[in-house]
């Protein structure tokens, strides 16, 4: 059995009904992550975006999550209470299909870090600046499987061996180890 470990999950609760669309969250996010801190403002660098469509009454603050190197094969639309949300409206990924969550200069992906800093903030700044309470912060303890079970790895590896053969797998592992040495 894997070891059960306790971890803290940081959660920003987004109440789309309370959002007034002011984009203060974008402002404070980009200013906080500027170097030196607060030296510049540019919503295009923010790790939160308010997907706004006032005439359709759509306001969705979305946080930058993992970078996706390829776009999805299919695109979905959600209809909630009669409002049609565009494809990708709720997606947190920087991906080739859109310009959200990419550094405007370099194109490198952005990711929300919950304003990690020293000293630690009591809550992320977007939450502090959202006085309409569309964004609220919550921490909770969760039990997670921290250590993967050895037999799970074996099952995966055996499948790869069967497909590619021992030699190719060994070569690949060696090559990966070489290239990642510096990290």
């Amino acid at each position, binding site marked *: 059995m894997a070891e059960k470990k306790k971890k803290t999950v940081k959660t920003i609760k987004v109440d789309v009904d309370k959002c007034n669309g002011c984009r203060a969250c974008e*402002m404070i996010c980009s200013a906080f992550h500027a170097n030196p801190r607060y030296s*510049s403002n540019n919503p295009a*660098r923010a790790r939160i975006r308010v997907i706004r469509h006032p005439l359709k009454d759509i306001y969705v603050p979305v946080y930058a999550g993992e970078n996706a190197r390829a776009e999805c094969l299919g695109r979905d639309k959600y209809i909630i209470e009669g409002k049609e949300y565009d494809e990708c409206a709720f997606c947190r990924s920087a991906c080739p299909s859109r310009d959200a969550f990419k550094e405007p200069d370099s194109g490198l992906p952005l990711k929300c870090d919950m304003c990690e800093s020293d000293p630690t903030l009591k809550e992320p700044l977007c939450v502090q600046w959202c006085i309409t309470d569309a964004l609220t912060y919550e921490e909770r303890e969760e039990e997670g499987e921290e250590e993967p079970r050895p037999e799970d790895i074996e099952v995966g590896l055996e499948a790869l061996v069967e497909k590619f053969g021992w030699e190719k797998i060994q070569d690949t592992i060696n090559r990966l180890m070489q290239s990642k040495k510096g990290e």
Partner: protein
Amino acid sequence: MRYAETGYNLEIDLSTGNIERVETDPRDTELYLGGLGTNAKILWERVPPETQPFSPENLLIFGAGLLCGTPAIGCNRTILTSLSPQTELMAFSMMGGFWAPELKFAGYDKVILRGKSPDLVYLWIHNDQVEIRDASHLRGKGAVETQELIRQELKEPNAQVAAIGLAGENRVFFASIEQGRSSASRQGLGAVMGDKGVKAIAVRGTKDIHVARPAEFMELMHEVMEYIKFREANPIPGVIPILARLGSPQEMAVHDEKWHTENFMWGNARVRRRDFWNEEIARAWKETMESMQNRLISCYNCPLKCGATITPPGHSTYMMKCFSKLTYTMAAFSDLAFGLTIAQRATEYGVDGYSTPQVMAFALELYEAGILTDQDMPGLPEGNEDRFYWLLDRIVRREGIGDILADGTYWAAKRIGKGAEAFAHNTIKKHEQLPLKLGMLNPIYYLMYCTGEKINITQIEGQFPQAPFPTREEREAFVKDWFQVPHERFKQYFLDWEPRGEKSMPFYPTVEMCCDIVDWMEKMHYIDDAMGVCSGLSSFHLKPPYHIHNYPKIISAGAGFDMDEEKLSLAAKRYRTLVRANNIRRGMRRKDEVPPEDHWKKRFPELEKQLLDAYYQMKGWNLDGIPTTRTLRELGLDYVAEDFLARGILEE
């Protein structure tokens, strides 16, 4: 390195199609700050007084406030400057929303339009890429509709678009420029945009705006935010709801309209209905608002929710602004459902919500009086509300009588003749005013109405209570935490001010005190208009988060030059005087500085003369309202002094 501003203006010649990115002089920023201040300087330098509003030489300047694009809370205003077709004076209409910060992020402080495009076009500003694009397919489209069509066409959902509707295209003198949940409505700048052949300006920017001393700037913004929260949690007691809180949330969020409906005039600014509001109306109007309103909304980086998206049944959605909620309703003696529904059409057409209903009510009054007849109005419907729609449709197309009415009540009355002038009774400097008619002269408001060059009372009043509090205890409680005053003496003015007796209106506050109070109120508005800060968090309000004591620090930490209260007051006086200089050069004089004759029933001509004399003197203007050479030179406006002397406007 430039801080707060980008240091570049975008110059677009619509006649030739030439587009230039021009670096600006940082010394001008220190002297005139930005927004309105630098707009006024450009207009002075480049638009000679012979220029007509609809001549290609007239400029239309979209100026972002100095602090727009920085983290300054509620700082999002675009200050538009041009010559107004209606007043024929320098106009500075303004809009909030999201456009000004986006322009800054694209790398520009202002867009300056000159010339005229031969065909209808729109501008697409995307960082360094600027295009003049064909807009023939957008001709006749609604102002709200156009914003959406352009975003779709450009595949740029984040573009901010300022657009005109049919009224602007047809050069209606009170046409607006609509943008998101805001608009530049006053003084007809939509008509100037239409005259230049520009349907819209779309902007998208992804560049940085820097502040000079980040830690200090953010600390000041935290103080502003904390004070906003404090004010939201602690409405000011003893004043009407509109003044108790910041912003103008009462328009959309508060249903009790007893104060507006019983104190403002109905029809063509004629009828006061003192017992109008009752439970039945309160219930019906609340139901109307709740059935049509989707959500309360904000402008860029502002926590207040002054606007709302409104969907009247069977019509498309629009964003309602401030007091337009009631202007159509009251002009037509109708109800809120009518007001919110016709405002949808009016917003798409792109017209000013203050002037338009009055122009229509004026036309119907003339019809009732037999001055306009069935020959002038063939096909005028029977129903009262239908008549408003009928007139609106004709005004924005300049069809038939609509062509005359489209010039506003002042010019329309002149053209109609037959005594119509008496019906155009609610203008200052040829521009329609809020429908207010009151009892006894208010000396503070008298000065503001006379000398306000934005020509809208809400854009100059604020800071000082509109009326005395009944008891000394209440007044003492009010002044206790009134730290926004520029000087302790303002507290004393207020403490001693009584509703009745020796120290009451119109002789108290005294002439000198009135001048002092008006000067302070005006100064704060002018500072906001250079910074791009909304007066809803500042000059319009009692005890606002932005004030004369924190502004110098905010400007200095943001823009990076030295600033203190004295230097800021001097800068505000400099460009305020330059605004006046623009108008003096266009012929404005004391004779033009008069409130509507019927604004107050009881007038005091002797006192009014004393007030205006003293105010002019305090401002450093002569008795005709012209800034003296001495004043001009003290302010570093020597070039204005030389011009006035050369033109014979002043003598040494």
